[in-house]
């Protein structure tokens, strides 16, 4: 066990992790706990969005609520800045830093750095800094804000702030952990002293016989013989990708097949596909089924019973937890090339259909549902297991331990 103390700071909690970012963070914290004697995680977050959090997490005070509502897609920046600018948050962070006295601080995504840098300077603390990136944030934020229709000058202002902080953090951290090979190269080209790749992975898929039986009965009752599953949060790259690569016209799906949307993405489509007298909206539900916010157990069961997994991801940085999940599930996968970012070596596994146009993607879904899948060899199974978190984070944890 390494005797150094490591503090990880993010802008969301990780208790009962649901989303991809939370799961990555939770996996990193667990990995550090296996190597470091003292590990502390703190999430600075907006309370209305997370029902589960730990006592050590810091909710944003109520007076910041209007600001969050006004610009929800920059709430992470607000959380980061609050470390220095909000008296309540600053006081709690100061107490934590002074009490814990971390040897290493891992800044998750760039946002905590917006306030942390000034606080550390004020406290005259100089721990080793690790920048753990989930995406190249400034370009990722621009994509998100453009997709929600924010006015250009505002977007430019936010992006400028993030870019400055991200490049500063890259150049001044002792280690950069990147999610994809492309991101790693970006940071190396922008002044990173050391960079290591830790792509997204997965915990082993867990479920119960009861949950599996529930979904088998459900689909049998609905007379659904073939399912193509897409799991995702209501995060713009998810629904943008689905709309682009699959669309709302579902006549291509066989009569007894369904696209099953699980997670926050289900809520997005439930709220979006409501236009009266629109034939696409009226018939969308003939071939699409929603599973809103499934538990981990339920999700595991869906992955077990599905006949194919679709990954219509066309944008967004980082590597895709959904891709890791799909590979681990050992089901036919229909994906864009973009979805396999940082999983390039795994494209050789059997039952993977890559398609980068809507026509090819839809045709691939039908083929994947109608073609009996090939069984993986032992070698292929071993390769697939490299998507587990343990394997993905090993090198990064090793590098951090050397700091």
């Amino acid at each position: 066990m390494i005797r150094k103390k490591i503090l990880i700071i993010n802008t969301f909690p990780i208790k009962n992790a649901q989303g991809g970012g939370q799961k990555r963070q939770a996996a990193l914290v667990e990995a550090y706990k296996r190597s470091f004697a003292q590990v502390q995680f703190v999430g600075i977050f907006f309370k209305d969005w997370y029902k589960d959090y730990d006592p050590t997490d810091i909710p944003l005070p109520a007076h910041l609520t209007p600001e969050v509502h006004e610009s929800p897609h920059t709430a992470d920046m607000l959380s980061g800045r609050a470390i220095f600018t909000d008296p309540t948050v600053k006081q709690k962070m100061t107490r934590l830093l002074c009490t814990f006295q971390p040897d290493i601080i891992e800044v998750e995504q760039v946002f905590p750095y917006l306030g942390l840098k000034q606080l550390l300077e004020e406290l005259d603390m100089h721990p080793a800094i690790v920048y753990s990136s989930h995406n190249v944030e400034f370009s990722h934020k621009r994509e998100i804000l453009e997709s929600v229709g924010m006015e250009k000058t505002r977007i430019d202002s936010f992006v400028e702030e993030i870019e400055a902080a991200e490049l500063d953090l890259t150049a001044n951290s002792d280690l950069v952990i990147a999610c994809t090979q492309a991101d790693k190269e970006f940071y190396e080209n922008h002044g990173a002293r050391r960079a290591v790749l830790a792509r997204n992975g997965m915990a082993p898929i867990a479920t119960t016989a009861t949950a599996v039986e529930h979904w088998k009965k459900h689909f049998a009752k609905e007379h659904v013989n073939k399912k193509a599953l897409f799991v995702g949060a209501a995060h713009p790259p998810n629904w943008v990708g689905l709309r682009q690569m699959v669309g709302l016209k579902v006549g291509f799906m066989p009569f007894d097949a369904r696209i099953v949307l699980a997670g926050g993405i289900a809520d997005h489509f439930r709220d979006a596909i409501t236009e009266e007298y629109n034939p696409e909206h009226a018939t969308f539900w003939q071939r699409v089924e929603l599973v809103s916010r499934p538990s981990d157990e339920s999700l595991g069961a869906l992955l077990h019973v599905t006949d194919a997994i679709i990954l219509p991801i066309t944008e967004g940085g980082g590597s895709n937890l959904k891709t890791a999940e799909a590979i681990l599930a050992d089901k036919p996968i229909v994906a864009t090339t973009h979805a396999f970012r940082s999983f390039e070596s795994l494209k050789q596994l059997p039952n993977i259909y890559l398609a980068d146009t809507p026509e090819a993607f839809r045709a691939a879904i039908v083929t994947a549902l109608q073609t009996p899948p090939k069984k993986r060899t032992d070698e292929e199974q071993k390769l697939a297991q490299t998507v587990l978190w343990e394997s993905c984070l090993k090198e990064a944890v090793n590098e951090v331990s050397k700091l």
Partner: protein
Amino acid sequence: MTKRVWIDMTDMRIWSGHMTGIQRVVYLNAKRFVASKEHDARFFAYSDTYDVFEEVDFAEIEQRIEYVPEEEQVAPEARSRSLKQLVKAAPRAVVRRVSPRVKERIPAEIKQGMKGGYRLGVGLLKRSKHAVKRRLRPVAPPQLAQVTFGPEDTVLIMGKSWDFPAMIPTLGRLKQAQGFKLIHLVHDMIPTLQPHCFGPGLFEPYTKTLFEVCALSDGILTQSKATATDVERFCKLLLIPAPPIKTVRLGDEVLDIDLPADEPSPDARIKQGEFVLQVGTIESRKNHQIVYLAYREAALRGIQMPTWVIVGSQGWLVGDVLWQMMHDPAVKDNIIILGGVSDRTKLWLFRNCRFTVYPSTYEGFGMPVSESLAYGKVCITSKTSSLPEAGSGFADLVSPYNTEEMLQAMVRYTDDAALHAREKEVAKYKPASWDGMFKDVSAFIKTIA
């Protein structure tokens, strides 16, 4: 294994004296399947209660239809209505009993709101009824003769499958399990393409049913090339791989009743040769509005118009226009609305009208147009959708949205010479036969099977 053709007779199960256009298509083709012996024809109906398909005896249906006394062949005020239809008609019956003076005092917005609320309620009730039915569906009793469609069989549906939202999906599951072919006649796509012509509650079940029909059918029949194009476009829009589509021509219905030349008028107000006839359901899509406005314009200009005789029951979204027509001092005395009539009366009206009008905005075919031509009568109809096809080059075509065009077309035939000249051309029209339709349907089945 024997190849059978199973013909859907669900529409004929609850029959109440007068056949609708769709029922005529189903029945007259079914008769020919029995007579021809070209196919091993069997008949079935869908049970919404048990969600099963049961075999039915065509002879029993034939007897009910062929031997109904003439006085009972009046629609929709038929005496022998099923309870379901009586319940459906009850609100209208109540409204009819309210004094006109009372009705006049109710503001138009309130009446509109009440109508909208009623239709919305009916739609919601139907949907919840179907949802409850799905959950509480009883098991079919053993004595119900459930059909087993064989893998070499063809199932032919020419009726209103959209009236039973579970029918096509249930058939689809059977098809996947048993492997038979499915051929479906799509009469039209109007509730999907022109939802504004109907009240709330029809667009969704209709569109969903058509979606599954297109997805599941091995072949689709349509009544016009215009409807075939609509189906192709619908499939393309929703990325459904379109099955083969064949257009078949409906037979023209010329009533075979012995009616003497001196048969008196059924209504003293209707004089031989001095009226314009419009036959068909009175609903907004049939566009009585434009004829009314043309009559109004004629009144304004002092043009004497023939009496306008309207035959048909009241349908969607037409209450306000009817009220105006019946109360407008400029035209009300020149309009006679007969509602449903017997075949005998209908024959008299066709034989003795001056000409007919049918300015519908959208049709799947337009039977009243070809009927009119089959009777040798000039017909003014629309230049949209399938109506030019129904006119076969012998009808006068006008824009259904241009009052002046409509008026001028009608005024032209107030002149005897012009009318007779046109009638000479219309006399060249060759009526289509139900035998012809059956032949095409039969050939299509053989292609698909």
